Every structure is written in C-alpha cells, then in structure tokens.
C-alpha cells in the first residue's frame, strides 16, 4: 500500500532536485553562451564539445559521477547538470550567433555598442532558440532525476526502483505516473510561456 | 513505361479566349493567339503581364479558368498530362537541374523513365551535350554545382531536348546571365535553332534578344496580348505608345554609315581580365566562379588575346599558363567607324574583336550579333 503522503513526499524531493538543477543550469549556461559569442575559438570548442557530449547516454554520466563524487543529492545534481547544460548552451549560442548580418551592420551603423547589440538585437533574436533549449533541458532533467534515485538522490525514481526490486506494481506506478504528469505539465507550461513571451514577429 | 508520342511536328497551336484569374485578378485575360508550326515566337512585356502564365498553360502546369488550347487541332485538355509534357521541352531561367543527379542522369532521366536501354540513353546524352557545345566526356559525370551558370543553362536545354520534342517553351532562359555570356549563348542558340527546326515559344525582357531571335514578337501588357507581328511591323506600326516605347530601345541604328564602334560594342567588366601568367587550372576555377566562358588574357595592361572556358577544360592536366593558349583577336579603337571594321572582321572570318579606349581594353565587338541587330 502506497500512501498519498509517500507519493507527495517523493514528488516533492523530485521537484526540488528538478527545479534546483534547472535553475543552476540556466545560470551557468547563459553566461557561458554569451562568453563564447565573443571568441570564435571558444565558441567552436564549446559547440564541438556540446555536440559530442550530447551523444553520451545519461546512465553512463550518472554512473561515472559515483566514483568521482559519491552518491546522494549533490552528486545527482552534478550528474544532471553535465547533461542539461549542453542543450541550453548550444541553443543559446546558435540563437545569438545566427543573426542576420545586415541587421548587425545596420546596428553598427547607427552606433550601437557591443552590449547594446547583444541586448537589443542578438538577444531578442535568440529568445525562441533559448526557450526551446530550456524546455528541452527541463524535460531531460525530469527524466534523469528519476535515474539518479539509483545513486541516492531520492525522489520518484526511488519508488520505481523499490517497486522493481520488490515486484510491487503499485509502487512502480506511484513513481512513474507523477513523473509522466510532471513531464507533460512542463511541456504545457513551457509551450504556453513560449507563446506568451516570444513575440510572434517571425511570420 | 513509354508514353505516347503525341505529335512529331507542330502544325499549329491555337489559344482561344484563354483566361486565368488569381484571387480575382487577371493573370491572363481572354487571350487569343495563333502560333504557326516551326516559328519562333517571342513574348515580351512588363513584369507580371502574364508571359509565364501563358507558357505554363501550354504544357498544362497551369489550367486555364476558361478558353481552350489546341495543338494540331487537338484540345490539350483531352491529352494525358504526362505524355503531353514529354512532348514539350521546357527551359527556365533558374534551370532547376536536379542537384543529386549527374549531368548525364539529369539529361537522361525522362528517357530512362520511358524505358530506353542504357546504351541508347548514353548515346543520346552524348549527342545532346556535344550539341550544346559541352564536351560530353568531360561533363557527363559531373554534378550541377560543378558547372558555371552558362554551362548549367546549356545542360538545361539539352535536358529539354532529350525526347526530341517538336515544341520548346523557354522562359527567360538567358535572363540570369551576364551580358557577354548572354550574347554568346544567343549566338549559339541561333545556330542551334536552325538545326533544330522546332516550334519555339520564348519569353524575354530583352527587346534586342527578341529582335535577334524571333520570327514574330508578341507584346504583352496587363494580362493581354497587345500586339503581335514581325519586328518591322512592330517598329513601323506600333499599336500604341507602350509598344512603341518597348521597340524603340531596340532600333537606335538607323544610319549605319555614321555609327561608331562604341555604339554597338558590348562593354567589358573587369572580371573578364586575367593575367597571362595565370595557370590554366586557376583560370578555370576563376572563370567558373565568375560564371564566364570567355576571358581576356592580359600582359600588364596589354591585352594579348582571349581564352575560352571549354578549350581550357579540354586541355586536361597541364602546367601551362593561359598566356600559352591565348588566341589573338583583332582590336579596334572605340571611336572608329563601325562599317569598315565590320567588313574587315567579316572578310577575315573573326567572330569577336577587342574594343580599346586609349590602348586599354573597354569591350568586345561581336560582328554577328551586330549584323543581326542591323538587319
């Protein structure tokens, strides 16, 4: 018998891990992407690395963290970060760097400085891509945060793994269904926010 | 599967009361037009006047809202679309060679779909490539992006000719080419046309091109055919001011004896000039990049002759410079009188000459082109 309290408790743990990681990954990714904009070399290296690392299965990343940092909430957070940074950095960088050249010329022409160009030209142009990156990352985080229960992060994954070990279907569902609902909710929320925040000036 | 050969030759094409509207606006308004078998009809007129729409109704890429089109007395609406189109060649300005097929595959595609055997296709492709002055062994296996714009346009023509269609529709085929290249292709096309003996409907924006190539010229404006006739008829009896102003730009050469070379020369862009010391393969790359088929070889400021792209390509692996292969051509000052120079060129059988200003080359004179404009 799985009580509502148990489910809520695990859901709470899951959400704390999810939101903390999302917040931290946004805080790290955006400045990194901005920085890489000002050096072609750094940008190139970051993009190459992001592309390579994105192919690495999450489970491999989670596993490798164990001997390096141990188990528990923070190792889990770091393992998730390693995967979640990439899509945000990548999308932000692409969004910021694929600005119409004539627009940049024009901005130069009317005397905007680098900061102003970033603020008024590059950033608005990159909003849709940045948003897509954050949305993708949040869904990825939700998914890995279940896996990290295997290395002691707690949360909904714990219910699922306990259920698997004890052949307890009720427990499995008690973990799986909230996780799916969270994923769908994230998708809906971000899609709605996207519609609202990103002006529809492109077509 | 092979489609039916619908017609071996064109006796007549009749458009009767053809109308096409887009969003309530006429693209073609009640067009009646008779085209004779074997003629070259050129349609000319302002942008949006309905030229392309007219062409595309003949091969049924567009279906008219009302009116009929008959070819050899047969209503084309009753013909099967695919076989109708395989009997009509279509050439357009942006060519549309398939980027994933080699030149040979592009040209041979419809023949393959018709079930021809490999040898027959390859023979036909070779014949057509040579016909449009592209050495077949060199071009068959290339991809379109490896060709210059002019070469692609030739392939586009060869592709349209593969089933030997008796009717050709050409929509501004030379419109995107640089003026000198356009003149070259027009000249070649004149010769090709004689050999082809096909009925051709051709759209252009260039009245000189029309005068040079057309048997008859149809002037279109605002979805209507305003006037149709030979160049003389249009020049001497323009139906209205619009026609007069269109043909006027083409007939500035009334007194041959007073014309100077500069009046009829084709001005030259700097991109044509290449140093004699340039290696052959570098010159080929440069000419492909600049989309030219003819280059002026110069020694410092002194023009020593010309080289042609196909000739250079035919050389194959070589360490020669283009100076080694420059063909010398006659040269005239731009203020010389035209007539004696033309006579001179004609007698010696030259098809191109330099025009110089104070010893510096400023353009080309194409005597054949000039002749055609004069008569």
């Amino acid at each position, binding site marked *: 018998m799985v009580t509502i309290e148990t489910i809520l408790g695990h859901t709470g743990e899951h959400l704390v891990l999810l939101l903390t990681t999302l917040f931290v990954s946004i805080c790290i990714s955006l400045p990194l992407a901005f920085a890489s904009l000002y050096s072609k070399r750094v940008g190139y290296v970051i993009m190459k690395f992001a592309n390579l690392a994105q192919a690495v299965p999450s*489970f491999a990343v989670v*596993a490798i963290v164990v001997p390096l940092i141990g188990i528990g909430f923070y190792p889990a957070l770091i393992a998730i970060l390693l995967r979640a940074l990439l899509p945000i950095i990548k999308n932000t960088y692409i969004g910021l760097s694929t600005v119409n050249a004539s627009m940049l010329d024009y901005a130069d022409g009317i005397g905007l400085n680098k900061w102003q160009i970033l603020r008024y030209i590059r950033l608005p142009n990159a909003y849709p891509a940045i948003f897509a990156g954050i949305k993708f990352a949040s869904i990825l985080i939700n998914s890995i945060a279940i896996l990290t229960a295997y290395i002691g992060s707690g949360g909904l994954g714990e219910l699922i793994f306990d259920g*698997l070990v004890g052949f307890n279907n009720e427990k499995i569902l008690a973990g799986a269904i909230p*996780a799916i609902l969270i994923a769908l909710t994230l998708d809906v929320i971000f899609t709605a926010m996207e519609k609202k925040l990103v002006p529809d000036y492109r077509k | 599967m092979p489609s039916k050969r619908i017609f071996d030759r064109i006796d007549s094409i009749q458009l009767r009361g053809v109308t096409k509207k887009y969003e309530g606006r006429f693209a073609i308004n009640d067009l009646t037009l008779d085209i004779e078998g074997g003629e070259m009809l050129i349609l000319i007129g302002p942008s949006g006047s309905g030229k392309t729409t007219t062409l595309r109704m003949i091969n049924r*890429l567009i279906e008219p809202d009302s009116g009929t089109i008959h070819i050899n007395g047969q209503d084309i609406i009753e013909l099967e679309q695919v076989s109708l189109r395989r009997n009509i060649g279509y050439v357009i300005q942006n060519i549309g060679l398939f980027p*994933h097929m080699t030149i040979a595959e592009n040209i041979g*595609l419809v023949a393959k779909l018709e079930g021809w055997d490999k040898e027959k296709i390859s023979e036909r492709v070779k014949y057509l490539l040579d016909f449009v002055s592209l050495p077949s062994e060199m071009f068959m296996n290339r991809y379109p992006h490896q060709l210059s714009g002019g070469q692609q346009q030739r392939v586009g023509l060869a592709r349209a000719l593969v089933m030997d269609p008796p009717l050709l529709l050409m929509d501004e085929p030379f419109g995107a080419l640089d003026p000198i290249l356009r003149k070259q292709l027009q000249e070649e096309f004149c010769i090709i046309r004689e050999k082809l003996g096909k009925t051709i409907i051709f759209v252009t924006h260039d009245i000189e091109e029309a005068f040079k190539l057309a048997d008859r010229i149809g002037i279109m404006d605002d979805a209507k055919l305003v006037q149709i006739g030979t160049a003389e008829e249009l020049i001497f009896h323009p139906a209205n001011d619009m026609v007069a102003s269109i043909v006027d730009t083409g007939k500035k050469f009334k007194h041959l004896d007073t014309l100077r070379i500069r009046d009829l020369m084709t001005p030259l862009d700097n991109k044509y000039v290449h140093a004699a010391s340039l290696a052959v393969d570098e010159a080929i790359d440069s000419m492909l990049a600049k989309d030219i088929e003819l280059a002026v070889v110069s020694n410092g400021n002194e023009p020593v002759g010309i080289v042609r792209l196909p000739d250079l390509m035919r050389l194959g692996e070589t360490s020669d410079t283009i100076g080694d292969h420059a063909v010398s051509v006659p040269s005239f000052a731009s203020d010389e009188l035209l007539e004696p120079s033309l006579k001179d060129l004609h007698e010696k059988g030259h098809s191109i000459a330099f025009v110089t200003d104070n010893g510096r080359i400023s353009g080309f004179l194409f005597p054949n082109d000039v002749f055609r404009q004069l008569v």
Partner: protein
Amino acid sequence: MLLSDLMNVWEANSLTTRTIEHLTMFSIAIVIASIIGVSLGIYLYSRPGIAHPVLNFLNVVETIPDIPLLVLLLPIFGLGEEPTIVASILYSLLPITRNTYTGLKEVDQQYVDIAHAMGLSQRDILFRVRIPLSLPMIAGGLRIALVFTMGVVTLGGLIAAGGLGAALIAGIQLYEVGTILVAGIWTGLLAVILDGFAGSIEKKLQRRYGTW
C-alpha cells in the same frame, strides 16, 4: 591504470558479451524504427490531413520520461530486451518520422516544378526527386534517433535487458570503481563513435543530395 588492470575489469564483467548485447538491441531498434519512421513519414506526406495529429501524438510520447516508459511496458512485454527495444523504437519514431515528413514537404519547389514540366508522374517525383533530396534531412532524424536509442538501451540494464547498462549496475551496486569507470567510459565512447559515424554519413549525404 595499467592495461592489464583494464583487461581484468573487461574480462571480469564480460564486456565483450555486454557490448554485443548492447549493439544487438541497438541495431534491432534502429532498423525497425527507421523502417516504420520513414514509411510513416512518407505516408503522412501523402495524407497531410492527419500529419499534425500523428506528429503531435509522437511528440507526447517523446515527452514521457524514459524510465517510466520502460516500466509501463513491463506488464505487456515482461522484463528484458523486448521492452527496451520497444521503448527505443517509440522514442526514435518522432525524429525519423518528423524529419522524413518535413524533408519531403520542404523540397525546393523549383525542382518539383521542373519535374512536373518534364512529364514525371507523381510517383516518379516522389521517388526520384523528393525522397533523394530529403535524404540529408532524414539522416539528421536518424542521427537523433541513434542518440536516443543508445540512451534507452543503456537503461535497459535496469530491467534485466543486459547490455552495457548491466555492467554499470553491477559496478554501482558492488561499488567497484574500476568497473564503473571502464564500463561508463566505454559506453560513452561507443555512443560518441557511433554518433560521429552517423554524422559523417549525414555530411556525405548533404554533399551528395544537398541543394547548392
């Protein structure tokens, strides 16, 4: 770490067998997903009316986190390789189908137009113009699917499907640092190599079939 240590860890965990299991599940999933995905993409292209609902549905499937999807398949397929392969296919369908559909739809109109003018039938236009010109796009979708599948197959270890995931689990449970590192790095490396290989094929196709 010495080479002999590495060999010991490799042998002790029978990583050769694990790798073969891993790649077998991976290949089966990718082959089936490509066949279904490409056919579905072509079908949706011919039925634009249902394209949106189907793609939206696949989008929802895509949103479902991987472990919950795997465990939901357990009652139907039992433990082991089957649910792992099925989940991989489900995740791979969206990128492959979507890219096939978009690729076919967004072929440059000028090529379609000239193909019509040359007298190609609808069928010839699909098979000789649209599909070849969409190959780079389809390959892009396949490459995404490859990465997803690699991830899911690794998770398969959690539901007794074997593969490299099983080695990772053994390492974590027994806390064998060597096993975790060797199996983890090898899994990552394998994925990166396969992705790089797919990437080079994608580039080749782009060069061959891309528009210039």
